[in-house]
């Protein structure tokens, strides 16, 4: 490892993983963290308490599974087409909880503000957080504010943490994927990352690039509900893993799951939906949309007999209309993701290494 922190340590790719495993995990060592899922799920037994304020809540009083997660947001610019840092801060944490199968309930919000930030900008961000929280049926119930000297932060950073409850029977995790599972993606990839990149670098494209930033707990609930209808004998247990491919993109997420479940994953390149504007921007910059960040998409690993049910449920939801089956889990080449190109060739789809940087010629 380099003896200084480099930007690539925060890219979500291999260097981020090394940092987490060799530093944080080494010191914070405990079995819950060691799962390294998007959210920690902790069993709380023997307690009796009332969960209020959630429309999706199921009556859980004694053997409760709590989901708990946190994330920090430093996106620049703080306003971008399709969202802003506040919307992102709510969606990101809500989505991490939802990927654990939890019904998100409460969030905290910590603000680090740079001296000189216009109050109107802060209000716009906070109003956006409130609107997003309402849409996701969560409440921001605690918070903190710090102001730092001009130049010590880039306008505004936000940290959110969130708690939720995991309904009975839901067992999701990166290590639960099995050979034969079908890989379903909820929609197009690369929208968020290319939107931010084009804003940040002042790249002007004729076609509109819009972030896909959205809370996915409704989509997850729709999928789990579709799987728990008793008449066709289906069960929520058919959903093995949900992941939102944020930093590092779809390719990195697939590699994480392949590694944790010790399975191979085969992806059909042509089946992965990518918007034309995103493809054009990626081609121009020499980037691969499979490595570009998303903020409103999920990948589901589902038992094959229930793939149709999940796909239909996704497509019926506003955030899953372009859902598609993109591949399968295999027992071969465990730990690796293999991509079949439209020409029929097969190649390794590796994890993102370093920062994705544009090519020069």
């Amino acid at each position, binding site marked *: 490892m380099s003896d200084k922190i*480099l930007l690539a340590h925060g890219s979500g790719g291999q260097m981020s993983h090394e940092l987490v495993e060799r530093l944080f995990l080494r010191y914070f060592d405990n079995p819950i963290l060691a799962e390294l899922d998007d959210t920690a799920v902790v069993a709380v037994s023997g307690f009796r308490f009332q969960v209020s304020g959630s429309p999706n809540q199921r009556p859980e009083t004694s053997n409760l599974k709590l989901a708990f997660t946190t994330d920090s947001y430093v996106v620049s610019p703080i306003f971008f087409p399709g969202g802003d840092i506040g919307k992102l801060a709510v969606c990101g944490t809500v989505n991490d909880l939802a990927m654990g199968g939890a019904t998100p309930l409460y969030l905290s919000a910590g603000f680090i503000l740079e001296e000189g930030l216009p109050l109107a900008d802060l209000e716009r961000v906070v109003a956006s957080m409130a609107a997003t929280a309402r849409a996701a049926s969560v409440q921001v119930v605690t918070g903190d504010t710090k102001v730092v000297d001009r130049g010590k932060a880039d306008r505004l950073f936000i940290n959110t943490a969130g708690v939720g409850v995991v309904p009975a029977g839901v067992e999701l995790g990166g290590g639960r994927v099995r050979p034969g599972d079908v890989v379903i993606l909820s929609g197009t990839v690369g929208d968020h990352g290319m939107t931010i990149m084009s804003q940040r670098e002042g790249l002007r494209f004729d076609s509109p690039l819009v972030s896909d930033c959205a809370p996915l707990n409704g989509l997850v609930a729709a999928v789990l509900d579709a799987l728990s209808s008793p008449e066709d004998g289906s069960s929520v247990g058919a959903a093995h893993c949900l992941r939102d491919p944020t930093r590092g993109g779809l390719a990195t997420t697939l590699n994480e799951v392949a590694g944790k479940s010790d399975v191979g994953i085969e992806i059909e390149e042509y089946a992965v939906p990518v918007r034309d504007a995103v493809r054009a921007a990626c081609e121009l910059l020499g980037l691969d949309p499979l490595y570009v960040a998303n903020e409103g998409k999920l990948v589901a690993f589902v038992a094959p007999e229930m793939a149709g049910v999940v796909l239909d449920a996704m497509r019926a939801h506003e955030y899953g209309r372009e859902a598609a089956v993109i591949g399968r889990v295999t027992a*071969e080449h465990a730990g690796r993701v293999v991509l079949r*190109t439209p020409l029929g*060739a097969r*190649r390794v789809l590796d994890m993102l*290494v*370093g*920062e994705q940087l544009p090519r020069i010629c």
Partner: protein
Amino acid sequence: MKYIDEFRDPQLARKLLASIRTRSKRPVRFMEFCGGHTHAIFRHGLRQMLPPTVELRSGPGCPVCVTANADIDRAIALASEPRVVMATFGDMLRVPGSHGSLQTARAEGADVRVVYSPLDALQIAHGCPERAVVFLGVGFETTAPGVAASILEAEAGGLDNFYVLSLHKLTPPATRAILDAGEVRLAGIIGPGHVTTVIGSRAWEFLPRDYGVPCAVAGFEPLDILRAVAAMVEMAESGQPGVVNAYSRGVRPEGNRTALGIMRRVFEVGEAEWRGLGRVPASGLALRPEYARFDAARAFPVDPGPAREHAGCRCGDVLRGVVEPPDCPLFRRACTPAQPIGPCMVSAEGACAAWYRYGEVDV
């Protein structure tokens, strides 16, 4: 998507592959000059689709990779000057020089900024008149005209804090150097598509004329490359080497006269140092004396100390096409994209990065 999907059509590709398979009898090795081609070939899995008689070998066409360590050291030393803002294409950031990279220099406090165009560097210079903005001019004939245009614009705008460190290189002399060295038998060259939009397909006529080697200029989509390979198999089998323009939607025989004109106005041709090839005569671009005040090397004389090569690194041999990345003892072991030792593992156009990322492993 228009202009892309047409050139990725699986059915047309299968037809082209079938005709290559039928026509190709004797074993041939073609070099794709350009690192962009190498990556396209790997990304689309073209090597495994070609018949065993057709071998593709990566060439020196990665501007970042052919930049000599001494030049990288100079760029890092320049970037570390307190008044300097170093503006560079992203690719150069992580390339290791003798002791560090621009990225590590940035972590130590150097002001290094990634730009997408030399015109972005001009904007930075406009925005901070108290700083000296140095654009790191790394690239081939594709990049040089844009850099020349930025110098002309700086001159027209009376900008006095904009400089260029010109490490630009020319592609035909490098191709000559490889063929002259004769270390690797080549039956044809896949001509670089983007470069040839500027220099024109006629610039490659010396290949059949002086070396009896066919050349097909290719674009960067799978069908472009397959079409070029089919044309070269045809020329190799028929024993009639020529230059085929398989990228006619971008390339004209005479090239882009405007771009060439701007480039010649600002730069003059001189000797350049290439990683792997050493000093190659008439293969680099230096600022003409009338634009010398924009020359960062002249404005900021720095002494980075003696350059040092990385022990065991075979990037030079990879760039000459003498070996392939897995032949390097460091490949995948000491040298990975996360901990690169040689530039071919860093750049998005480097052959080692393509081998590492897309793997030619049994899966």
